[in-house]
């Protein structure tokens, strides 16, 4: 196995909860690799810690425990090391309107990365190049436009161009199409896919949208309450999921076959992670009694699962699924 460009090793991130409710374990032990030229989808509900994990991988958040590895080397948190690291790993946010400064032109927004790194040679050509790689052609037409003069899709392309200009190895995209129209969505996803094919650009796409994973990702990691509960190749996980949570997520999709399993209640609170399997309080398999029949019910309620590997192999953190395998 080759060294991953970007990897999380047993990363934990904790926050002081706001209203005096102890500590929130936003990310509670995660292994995750992103290999060269690979698109990984990190899927989960809001509040499951997927955005915190992404921010930690970007070095915007410091893990409470564990490490972020860049090509096998632990990330150092000095400002110089971080600055160098940020040339290699770029961020694309959900809301393209918010991620562009309304007072900066497209040219300034795209050139910002170069200016931050004091890299001023051929600025104009490189901006033009980044814009056309992001699908804004001819680039000169967009130089002096302001964000409010562009459509949502064009804005997201500008954000992507701004990330591309530093020739990164990985892009971390947090819900890159969630606030875009359905018709534009496919175009932006196709762009990410093309950048991977043409430039070998790896991507970690954080999303709650399983269709997006099916559209572009090679591998998917499903996160629940601070942990990855199932990971593996997209074809395997999305067509034959083993974890009850993944099964439920897939069953509620509009065109999914069979009866939807609508989990009751809200995703639980990261300040009060339940003991045992963290999903057991909402688990439909445990509720149906199937887990008890298989003789793992007690372990579901009382025994936490090991942290998954995060590499290429498919893996699941569920007593029931593991028992079924044997």
């Amino acid at each position, binding site marked *: 196995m080759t060294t991953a460009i970007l990897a999380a090793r047993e990363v934990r991130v904790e926050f002081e909860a706001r209203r005096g409710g102890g500590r929130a374990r936003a990310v509670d032990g995660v292994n995750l690799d992103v290999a060269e030229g690979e698109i990984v989808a990190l899927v989960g*509900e*809001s509040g499951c810690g997927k955005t915190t994990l992404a921010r930690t991988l970007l070095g915007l958040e410091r893990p409470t425990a564990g490490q972020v590895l860049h090509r096998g080397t632990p990330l150092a948190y000095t400002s110089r090391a971080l600055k160098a690291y940020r040339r290699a790993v770029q961020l694309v946010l959900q809301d393209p309107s918010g991620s562009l400064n309304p007072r900066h032109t497209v040219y300034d927004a795209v050139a910002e990365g170069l200016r931050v790194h004091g890299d001023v040679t051929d600025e104009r050509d490189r901006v033009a190049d980044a814009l056309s790689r992001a699908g804004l052609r001819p680039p000169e037409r967009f130089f002096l436009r302001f964000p409010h003069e562009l*459509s*949502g*899709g*064009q804005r997201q392309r500008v954000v992507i161009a701004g990330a591309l200009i530093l020739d990164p190895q990985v892009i971390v995209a947090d819900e890159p199409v*969630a606030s875009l*129209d*359905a*018709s*534009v*969505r*496919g*175009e*932006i*996803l*196709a762009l990410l*896919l093309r950048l991977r094919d043409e430039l070998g650009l790896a991507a970690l796409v954080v999303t*709650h*949208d*399983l*269709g997006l994973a*099916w*559209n*572009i990702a090679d591998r998917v990691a499903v996160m629940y309450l601070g942990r990855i509960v199932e990971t593996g190749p*997209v*074809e395997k996980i*999305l*067509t034959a999921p083993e974890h009850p949570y993944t099964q*439920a*997520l*897939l069953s*509620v*999709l*509009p*065109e*999914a076959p069979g009866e*939807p399993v*609508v*989990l*009751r209640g*809200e*995703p639980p609170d990261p300040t009060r992670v339940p003991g045992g399997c963290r999903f057991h309080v909402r688990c439909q398999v445990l509720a149906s009694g199937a887990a008890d029949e298989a003789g793992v019910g007690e372990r579901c309620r009382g025994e936490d699962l090991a942290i998954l590997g995060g590499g290429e192999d498919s893996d699941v953190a569920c007593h029931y699924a593991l028992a079924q395998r044997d």
Partner: protein
Amino acid sequence: MSVLAISDLTVTYRTAGGDVPAVRGIDLSLGAGQKLGLAGESGCGKSTMALALLRLLPKTARMTGSIMFDGEDVLTMSWGRLRAVRWAGASIVFQGAMHSLNAVQRIGSQIAEPILLHSKVGEAAARRRVGELLEHVGLPARRADAYPHELSGGQRQRVMIAMALACDPSLIIADEPTTALDVMIQAQILKLIESLVAENGISLVMISHDLSVLADTCDRLAIMYAGRIVEEGPAAEVFRAARHPYGAALAAAFPTIGDPSSRRSPRGLAGDPPDPADLPAGCTFHPRCPVRLDYCDRIDPQLWPAGDGARAACVHVLPDQGLSLVQKEPA
């Protein structure tokens, strides 16, 4: 009998730069207990139309045509009557529940407000009703004392639905009710809307840009582009085999998981939606159309029958008729 019958509705915004047509001639009807999905991208006029149904548009908007609601025209009815319709006849569930709720008022009193105003019952009766409504939408009655910020996004959307139900409306208009919600919460809310509509015989107009969600919930689908309906028909039909290329593009935008044709090939639609103030000539969709013919910039297709109770505004539906129309016009 139809609850809602819209005929030839147009909405034009008057701006400093001239008149901007947002809705350009829409005919629709909705029977009692029917569920209609309205899809389209932002700027296509779908939200404008939703607001027009209850005359909630700003003063700069000019409306023509008619909107018959239970046999009365919303566009010409008196203010008093309109108020009654807004409270008791039809209600709107907006997207972005956080902004539609008053942040400094307990949700219980927000739900009670229309009840107290309209049905002339006492405080105690209104409180009881609020409790019932909350339980109806799956929240414990004691949550009436909560402030909006104490609730999660999904719970707030439930409150919005409780407010919409407060006066037993015969029509609910839901504008992107599940956008920005997680898949699981979205499924919960959709299930709730569906069961409420079925139990109480309410008609539903649901607006979204996600065709798959609409196809799952609604009986019929209407697809809007540049202020007009370009395709309309039974939900399954439109979703699975759209006749208009725009409808087909929207349907393909959200993949079916497990479908090998969409694996690693996200499908979208090139180009941007047209500027309502400067619409393309002929078929407004022709600049983005993947299957356009050379005369599409000269012909403005109407909603032609497209089999199985469906209609579509595309020359491909009726090639002969389309061609003859072009030939009649001087080049």
